[in-house]
């Protein structure tokens, strides 16, 4: 049953229409619009734009070089439906690896009254026993000031609240700190020295 081929009578189907040629599909038909051959999502593909489709070495070279060109100039990616072929329950289930770490964690630092902000990498202080102390030292150097009655350090957490530096364990601080703020003047005095 399987594997036998029944030859369709040539007068049943329009033989000419089904006859295989090496020409482009649609080249014989007189309709003005030929069907769009590829739905292009990316611009980097091998377009079949050459009018005569000779199976020649030249064609292959063109194909390779156009592919090469397209590698060097990647088009912006649009997400294709159903590609890559991963089932939806798998997409939902794979989270970022626990412990997969970024190499740096820069946060903005502002100082009241200073014209522009700085950025500091919290990761630099990550492996130290005295993360907070080292961080404060770093900030003092960066802004050329001394923590004391005039200055207090605070940070903005994930919820957008302004928190005094030093209340929580370092790891928790690292996970929740979005930016640092060095406060000056009456606000600072209200907070007193930092909790550290």
């Amino acid at each position, binding site marked *: 049953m399987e*594997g036998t081929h029944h030859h369709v009578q040539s007068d049943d*189907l329009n033989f000419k229409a089904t006859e295989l040629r090496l020409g482009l599909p*649609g080249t014989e038909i007189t309709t003005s619009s*030929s*069907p769009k*051959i590829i739905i292009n999502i990316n611009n980097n593909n*091998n377009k079949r734009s050459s009018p005569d489709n000779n199976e020649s070495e030249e064609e292959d070279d063109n194909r390779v070089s156009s592919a090469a060109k397209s590698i060097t100039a990647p088009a912006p990616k649009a997400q294709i439906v159903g590609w890559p072929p991963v089932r939806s329950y798998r997409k939902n289930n*794979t989270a970022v690896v*626990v412990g997969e770490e970024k190499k740096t964690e820069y946060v903005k630092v502002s100082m009241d009254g200073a014209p522009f902000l700085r950025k500091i990498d919290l990761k630099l202080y990550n492996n130290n026993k005295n993360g907070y102390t080292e961080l404060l030292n770093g900030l003092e150097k960066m802004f050329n000031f001394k923590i004391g009655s005039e200055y207090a350090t605070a940070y903005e957490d994930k919820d957008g609240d302004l928190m005094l530096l030093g209340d929580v364990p370092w790891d928790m601080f690292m996970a929740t700190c979005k930016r640092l703020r060095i406060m000056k003047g009456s606000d600072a005095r209200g907070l007193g020295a930092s909790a550290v």
Partner: protein
Amino acid sequence: MAYSFPEEVLEHVFSFLKTDKDRNAVSLVCRSWYEIERWCRRRVFIGNCYSVSPEIVIRRFPEVRALEMKGKPHFADFNLVPEGWGGYVYPWIVAMSVAYPFLEEIKLKRMVVTDDTLELISKSFKNFKVLVLSSCEGFTTDGLASIAANCRNLRDLDLRESEVEDLSGHWLSHFPDNCTSLVSLNMSCLGSEVSFSALERLVARSPNLKTLRLNRAVPLEKLSNLLLRAPQLVELGTGAYSAEVRSDTFSNLTEAFSACKHLKGLSGFWDVVPAYLPAMSSVCSGLTWLNLSYATIQSSDLIKLVTQCRNLQRLWVLDYIEDSGLEAVAASCKDLQELRVFPSDPFGAEPNVSLTEQGLVSVSEGCPKLHSVLYFCRQMSNAALVTIARNRPKMIRFRLCIIEPRVPDYLTLEPLDTGFGAIVENCKELRRLSMSGLLTDRVFEYIGTHAKKLEMLSIAFAGDSDLGLHHVLSGCESLRKLEIRDCPFGDKALLANAAKLETMRSLWMSSCSVSFGACKLLGQKMPRLNVEVIDERGPPNTRPESCPVERLYVYRTVGGRRDDMPGFVWNMDQDFSTFRDSQEQENGN
């Protein structure tokens, strides 16, 4: 017929024939063998629910005890089949509730199952034993409650990868206290928490329980309670594998695992806390199947685990394993037959892990029994594919997904034709192939020439012209299922090979260049095929004949056109010239 055996003898002989192929062959010998065989066929497999009607099946096989059936096309897994397409099992259950009161098993894949269906099943078949719903949808936990409550002799309830509307975990508590027959329970796809005490009691009163796959909501701290009550388990799916790191939890878990002397398969492993992995060390050497495809742990932890599993035959894992991990697998798991590596970040633009073609090459070199591969990666070379093909000529299933479409050999920038060509040329027993990367018509020439045992082929973003499709349809003698997306294949190859389609289960083509005109021609001239156009832009005859259809699904059938097509599916054998009239006629029925 003076020399023929009495019926009973023939029936007894036929009872040793298990495969459909053998039974079908036997029924062709003569009319009396046909008759005897059809009365004693107990298992029916229907690969496409629309290829035949319930009435025809029931008429021919009046004493069926087990039904296995598949509905939607495979590409439905990747959202290429719109919601509401079909695959409803309800009409089958209705018919069988009358015809097969002694039905024991129903196994469905990619079908729509409703709560009403489940209730009907639970009440119609007094001896119902096995329900497997693989990648199904349409039902809620209420339907599960009916099954639990009413099926007195339930042995298997397996919901693998189905989409269940999770109303509550209360369904599990519907298993009556006198239900002690459970052998297999797979609830891994469910979201909500079941009553742990109900689960514990169920496990405790099921002495034959061999397979238990929990859902994510079952906490790790409680796993040991279950294991201690079911040390006979052969397959276990954990819940979330995370808990606060505590020594008592750890020692309980270790003890519980070491009591399970028969465990062969492990899965689950959501949210893994690596500190708890050593708790399962005692079972590693006995494992033949390990499914870590949800375990988001790093290569080093994966290596520690996998290298202890020296008898592993099947490994499913995320690409966190990296090339280095696969090298370790190649060195330790000499019995490995099947490897599946899934992408942890399929939509990321840049690779997030160091997994390349090299990992697969290592495994192909180190694992002499490897015959089944599913591999997602971001780069591939012809050289690697040729090496893999030469290493493993006994390959049966080879599915390679290079994440970016149309990506060439990263070393030579050539298409991957040669590589895949080597696969089909060397692996003469290859039954299933999925390809990706940059591919021209040439690869299809290789496939048509060499892939004589190929039964299923999946193609995406490949080929240059109709020649490609023609090579496949004219050359692949054993082809049963062909699924194609985003390829420049059109009318000529399809129409020239129309007869081939009657020898196959189905053909799927989406985002290709098949015109409405060609689909009509195919549908009208091939009465034993259902040629269905799926197009969400509206009726195909509102566009020019030459306009390509969005999606085409062609399958052989003896059941005629289906009567449950939604508004975006058209059967091409209908008369489009009087489209409006025929539509009204249908509505009138």
